[in-house]
């Protein structure tokens, strides 16, 4: 009733917070565009952007309602649901896997079988182990001959200093670009080529409680973001500039790196005939099944509970 009495200009904006998966980078361009161009305000939203301390914080904090929305990983969302954390995915931000096995060309790796006798670095997550295992087995290799090393935070430097021969859990739009920029001749193995189902790498999630309480606001958010994403698609350069400008004072983001990153990302974020963010049940089923079979999930979960489409097809 309030809204009807007041005009749009001084309408009270609703606060919505979103926690990024990591620090601002090209993948978040749309969020900054929407903010900068007032798409959020048009929808009556005042969006706060937060950054996490740990990659799992977005899940936990969305579950507790400390933030309304968060960007997380599809696989990780399934894992957390299996742990009883009440989070739901409402939209797919990146529709394909960004993960890949990457290595220096000189290491002579052609297919996952060649990883036998090699040392692979990964960032302490069970999913990464499952990825390697699936790929090696699919390629007819012997997983027991592959050495996996948890390298913690140091994906890039562990490869650069040759402490590991290959990486998994590193992104083709970030680590790969940076390594190449530092002069390493890199090559990758695509996950989907060797039996790992394609997944929605990044999804936008919310807590079950928040979903029940603020569903319309979340829809508004997504409408604004969709509009911004269209802008990004149309004019990546300008959009990126908004992101870079936003950060320029404090953090000189590397323009070349982010430009290349966005180039990699954009095709993976859209799909013809499917609205931005729409999630297919099949993809969720495949990923959940694969995770269960790879023993990452200890119990079977119903993928239907894990997501809800906030936009219809």
């Amino acid at each position, binding site marked *: 009733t309030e809204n009807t009495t007041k005009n749009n200009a001084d309408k009270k904006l609703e606060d919505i917070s979103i*926690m990024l998966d*990591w*620090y601002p980078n090209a993948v978040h361009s749309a969020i900054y565009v929407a903010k900068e161009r007032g798409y959020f305000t048009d929808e009556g939203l005042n969006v706060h952007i*937060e*950054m*996490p*301390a*740990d990659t799992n*914080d977005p899940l*936990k*904090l969305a579950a*507790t309602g*400390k933030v309304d929305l968060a960007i997380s990983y599809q696989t990780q969302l399934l894992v957390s649901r299996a742990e009883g954390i009440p989070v739901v995915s409402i939209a797919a931000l990146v529709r394909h896997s960004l993960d890949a096995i990457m290595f220096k060309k000189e290491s002579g790796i052609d297919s996952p079988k060649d990883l036998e006798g090699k040392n692979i670095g990964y960032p302490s997550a069970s999913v990464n182990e499952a990825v390697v295992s699936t790929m090696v087995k699919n390629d007819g290799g012997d997983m027991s001959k592959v050495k996996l090393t948890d390298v913690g935070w140091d994906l*890039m*430097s562990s490869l*650069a*200093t040759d402490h590991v021969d290959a990486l998994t859990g590193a992104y083709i739009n970030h680590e790969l670009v*940076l390594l190449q920029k*530092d002069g390493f001749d890199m090559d990758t193995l695509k996950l989907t080529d060797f039996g790992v189902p394609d997944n929605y790498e990044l999804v936008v999630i919310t807590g079950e409680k928040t979903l029940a309480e603020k569903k319309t606001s979340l829809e508004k958010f997504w409408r604004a973001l969709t509009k911004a994403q269209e802008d990004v698609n149309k004019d990546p350069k300008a959009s990126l500039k908004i992101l870079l400008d936003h950060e320029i*004072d*404090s*953090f*000189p*983001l*590397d323009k070349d*790196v982010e430009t290349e990153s966005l180039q990699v990302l954009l095709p993976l974020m859209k799909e013809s005939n499917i609205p931005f963010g729409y999630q297919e049940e099949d993809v969720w089923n495949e990923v959940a099944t694969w995770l269960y079979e790879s023993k990452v999930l200890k119990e079977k979960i119903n993928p239907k509970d894990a997501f809800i489409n906030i936009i219809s097809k």
Partner: protein
Amino acid sequence: MKQIKRWVRTYSLFILFASILFFLIEWLVKKEMIPAFIIPAPTSVIAMIIENWKPLIFEHLSATMLEFSIGFLISVIGGILLAVWMFFSKTMEKIVYPAVLVSQMMPIIALSPIFVLWFGYTIWSKVAVTVFISFFPIVVGAYDGLKSGDKDYIELLRSMGATRWHTFIKLNIPMALPSFFSGLKLATVYALVGATIGEWLGASEGLGYYSRRMSGNLNAEGVFAAITILTIVGILLFAFISAIEKKALFWKKY
């Protein structure tokens, strides 16, 4: 002027040593014996600082210093109060000491959601981490110092009808100072590190945040620019506390 001169004389050796290190690293990096993305050339770090000095100093350093100041103050006051409480009450000692220990065994990262949950994304989450990291040395230093009071002196005051409180003020406190200052010096350093770590728990400014982001972008110059500034500030703070220590313990020189 005179003070500056004395300072230079005192630290000339360190400056010499640092310069040698500086050129050694520069040389090693230039000769590509150390990869520049792991340890950057000192000159490029300096270039980075000069280039970005405005946001580095006014935005990030000032944010970190604010967190540091509040956190350090709380730590010092809280740590002293805790130590005093433990000193006066055996019961409290038996409860608090183990509890303080337990708190120190908790990895901050595991607690990060808790900090955020309780303090949100305000400055208070960073202050909380700062306090969390820096109050332990203060508690231990102050408590061990208070306990070390010389029996004979205490008896003398008590014979004059001093209450426990009086002997505490007139004797235990002066006698605790050396040990307390040891702890305080440690705490200063840890508080600064704590503010830095606190900024990882979701911040949008501060040197810790800056260095972590730069690290995510494999920008080693940026990381070391932040570290360099932090280090300089840390040394200055340490020197400041040491100077106060010297003043407070002036009688030691007689």
